[in-house]
């Protein structure tokens, strides 16, 4: 399993737009990808699960991937976070 922590910088937090970008980005991967925030964990492939967490700007989240392509999945998340100014 690979993990990485990010700080959400997008001004509106992890809401609809950034959320759908992350979900769309990780959905094609075989690995299970999760997001943990304040001790709650949701499936990062679920837009409803992630948005339901109400992650605000400035929040620290941990993304974990577990499976055959876990490194690629984390790399992709990092890439989207940076290129779309969602988090760092």
């Amino acid at each position, binding site marked *: 399993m690979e993990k990485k922590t990010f700080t959400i910088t997008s001004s509106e937090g992890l*809401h*609809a737009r950034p959320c*759908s970008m992350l979900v*769309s980005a990780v959905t094609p991967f075989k690995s299970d990808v999760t997001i943990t925030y304040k001790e709650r964990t949701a499936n990062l*492939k*679920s837009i*409803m*699960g992630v*948005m*339901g967490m109400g992650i605000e700007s400035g929040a620290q989240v941990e993304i974990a991937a577990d499976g055959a392509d876990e490194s690629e999945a984390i790399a992709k998340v990092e890439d989207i976070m940076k290129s779309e100014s969602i988090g760092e």
Partner: protein
Amino acid sequence: MKQTITGIGVSDGIAIAKAYRLETPDLTVEKRTVEQPELEIVRFESAKAEAAVELEAIRAKAAENFGEDKAAIFSAHLLVLNDPELESSVKGSIEQGVNAEFALQQAADTFTAMFEAMDNEYMRERAADVRDVTKRLLAKLLGVHVSDPSTINEEVIIIADDLTPSATAQLNKQFVKGFVTDIGGRTSHSAILGRMLEIPAVVGTKTAMASIEQGTPLIVDGTDGTVVLEPTDEETQAYETKKTSFESDKELLKRFVSEATVTRDGHHVEVGANIASTDDLPLADKNGAEGVGLFRTEFLYMGKSDFPTEEEQYDAYKTVLTSMGERPTVVRTLDIGGDKELSYFSTPEEMNPFLGERAIRLCFEHPEMFRTQLRALLRASVHGNLKIMFPMIATLEEFRRAKGMLLEEQEKLQAEGIKVSDTYEVGMMLEIPAAAVIADLFAKEVDFFSIGTNDLIQYTMAADRMNETVSYLYQPNHPSILRLIHNVIQAAHKEGKWVGMCGEVAGDPLSIPVLLGMGLDEFSMSPSSILKARAQFADLSKAEWEGYIPEILQMETSEKIIEFVKTHS
């Protein structure tokens, strides 16, 4: 039986075509116990696959008709449809032995409730997406036919309860000539869409679905909100003429879009737009608005389950200010009470709500609500040319109190290190006769006045504007009203302040010449009236109308004044 239906005209123009009803299918779900859950899962999977194909097609059509931006909503719908949490929740219930429809309904209810409970508008809108997607899936599972507007291949006028985003995305602009809905108001999704597509639209008719059958010949007048069923030949003829002149006028007016508003004798006035949401901005721009003369912020508060947060408000104000840039933007602080209510906030039951605790009075009663809005406005002030306006001011003390609260919030923000523009202006809406009479005293303290004619007339004539039997007293050109307006403009100019008007009268061709003569500086109106007004100004002479004012102010009746305006312009 021949009849006429009226509603709210929200997008100008005339449409003449047959009715096409968008039926809302019956999607009632019953709970059944199933013996073979695996079969239910197969049913669910195949409904999902069909819905996905459909959504892809709608997405493509929406991109073609409205651009990628509007199509993004269907990408979101696809994400909801394919959501693993939704799927596992549905499958989980099915495995407990219930039918797929019931399992889906249950899962959807859970997610919808979750989104609706959030204190953020964006998230609450996701509840609507979940519902829209669920309906599509349910229709597939139930084998219910849903009308498919994408198959329309002749000219029609759409009749519906309301237009959902997915229904509107499937509308073929080539054939849809107008629409009529039972619910909705000026800012409903369908109203905005009508204006965006520039097709006539009437909303909030309440009775259209009940009284218009499929294929009924119709005339829709989106300007005055009339829908004529089974028109006679004479009626059709008359509306055809009106339609032709509307369209040719519109074409002619296009040349005024990028011009300033200048009279025949070279006097410049500012013509701005009244807007109710950020969605109205493209329309204001398209019609060449020189500013926003009235941003009605109450729509940020309506149709929700809780107050908008400071952040949500800041975002909306920032969007408007950024989009207007250097052009002045007058934002009216919260004006609820009277006929405008919020579902999550109980306004007091009053004998005379229009004379009761509304607008600024309500804000004083609920300072936290008011201060949140002031903070959001002040923070947004750095993004454009902001003018803050307080509604329903009757006394100097009220204005001072409101301004005092504003300055307190400004100090707090600055202490927190948050930047506030040092050039924003603070003014008031002039709509209470008491304030108009002492405009000279107010003029020393405000940066500007904006005259709200609807209420000014109602209060001056002591006639409820919702009451049909006294509607004859709604006289914008009554000598008393004109004298009050004149007094306000004189008083303001004496102190070097500017005066705008954001009520209906500002866009009325019969009032424009008189207001110009009196020296009104800014005229704010619905965006669709701007070009017509600009064309009228180009024909008027300020000096000439200035000369007529003393005579007009001595006239005895509204009729005489209107007659004078008609013969002299």
